[in-house]
C-alpha cells in the first residue's frame, strides 16, 4: 500500500513526474484546501524503490514494504 498524507501534501506532482513506474496520476479535483493530491493508481506496478518518498519535499509519502 502507498499512502499519501493529505495534511502534508502540497500537490507539487514531483511524485507523479519522478516515479519510474508511472504509479501516480495527478488528481483532477482539488481537496478541501485546494490541493491536488496525486493518486497512487497503478500500485501493482510499484517496485517499492522508495524514490517517491525520497523526493517528496513534504514527507507525505509512505510506501509499505511488507505487503503482498
Amino acid at each position, binding site marked *: 500500500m502507498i499512502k499519501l498524507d493529505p495534511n502534508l501534501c*502540497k500537490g507539487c506532482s514531483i511524485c507523479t513526474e519522478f516515479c519510474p513506474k508511472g504509479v501516480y496520476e495527478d488528481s483532477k479535483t482539488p481537496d478541501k484546501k485546494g490541493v491536488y493530491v496525486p493518486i497512487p493508481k497503478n500500485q501493482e506496478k510499484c517496485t517499492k524503490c522508495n524514490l517517491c518518498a525520497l523526493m517528496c*519535499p513534504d514527507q507525505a509519502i*509512505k510506501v509499505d514494504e511488507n505487503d503482498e
Partner: protein
Amino acid sequence: MEEANESPFMKYMRKDRLPHIFCAGCGNGIVLNTFFKGMEMAEVDFDNVVMVSGIGCSSRIPGYVKCDSLHTTHGRPISFASGLKLGNPELDVVVFSGDGDAAAIGGNHLIHGARRNMDLTVICINNSIYGMTGGQISPTSPQGSYGTTAPYGAFERPFDLAELVSAAGASYVARWTTAHALQLSNSIKKALENKGFSFVEVISQCPTYYGRKNKMRSPLDMMRWMKENSINKRKADTMDSEELAGKLVVGEFVNKAEREFSQELYDLVEEKYGKKSDAIKSAYRDD
C-alpha cells in the same frame, strides 16, 4: 520509531511543526530527505548530529529536525559550526546554508572553512536567488537570469561554488541537483564520512521567485530544466567552455584525505602540555 503510515523520514522530524513553511515543490524538503538518507547510509548516530544554519528559507531546515541545532545570523553558520566543532570534536556538525548565506554575506567564512579543512559537512542549497527576501539576485544567479534586482537580467558573472570551494582547499566537494536524489544522498554519505571540510552543493528549485521570474513557473519545469541540462563532471572535463555554456556540471569534484584542523589542534595541545585536553564537556562535570 517508524509508524506504519508515515514517511520513512518522519522519525527524525518535529512533527508538531509540520507542514513546513516551504512553498509547494520547493527543493529544501528534498535536500532534507537526502540528508537523512545519507546519514543512514554513513551510519552516523542521529543523536550525535548538530545542525547549524544561517538565515534564509534553506536555513530554516534545522528547525524541523529533532536534533540539537543552532539557527544563527546571516552568513555566519560556518563560524558558529567551527566553534562547536573545536569545543567538542566528537560531534557530527552539519551546516545548512543557501547560496546567499554561504556565498554572498558568508563567502569569506566559506573559503576559510575550506582552507582550514575543519571537519564540517556543509550542504549548500543553491537556488540561484534570495528566496526568503523576495527574489533578489545572488552571487550564483546565472548571467542573463531575472530577479527583482535584475529586471534586465543579471550581468555579473556567477561564482561556480563547487570549483571555488575546491580551490580553497576542501577535502570533499560534490555537486548535484534535486533531480538527482540518489546520487545526492550518496555524496552526503561520503561528505559525512570524510574527516575534513566537506561541501555538497545542491542546485535546487525556488519556483516561487526564480521559477516565476525565469519562465519556469512550476517545480516540475525547474526540475526538468535541471535534469536536461546537467552533465557529469567526467564528461564535462572533456568539453570546452562553449559547449558547457548553460550546463550544470554535476558529480564529485574532490575526494582526498587531508590533515584535519580540529585533530591537529588537539594533537598540538597534547604535545605542548603533555596531556590530552580535558575541556570537552567540562561544564557538565562535578567539581
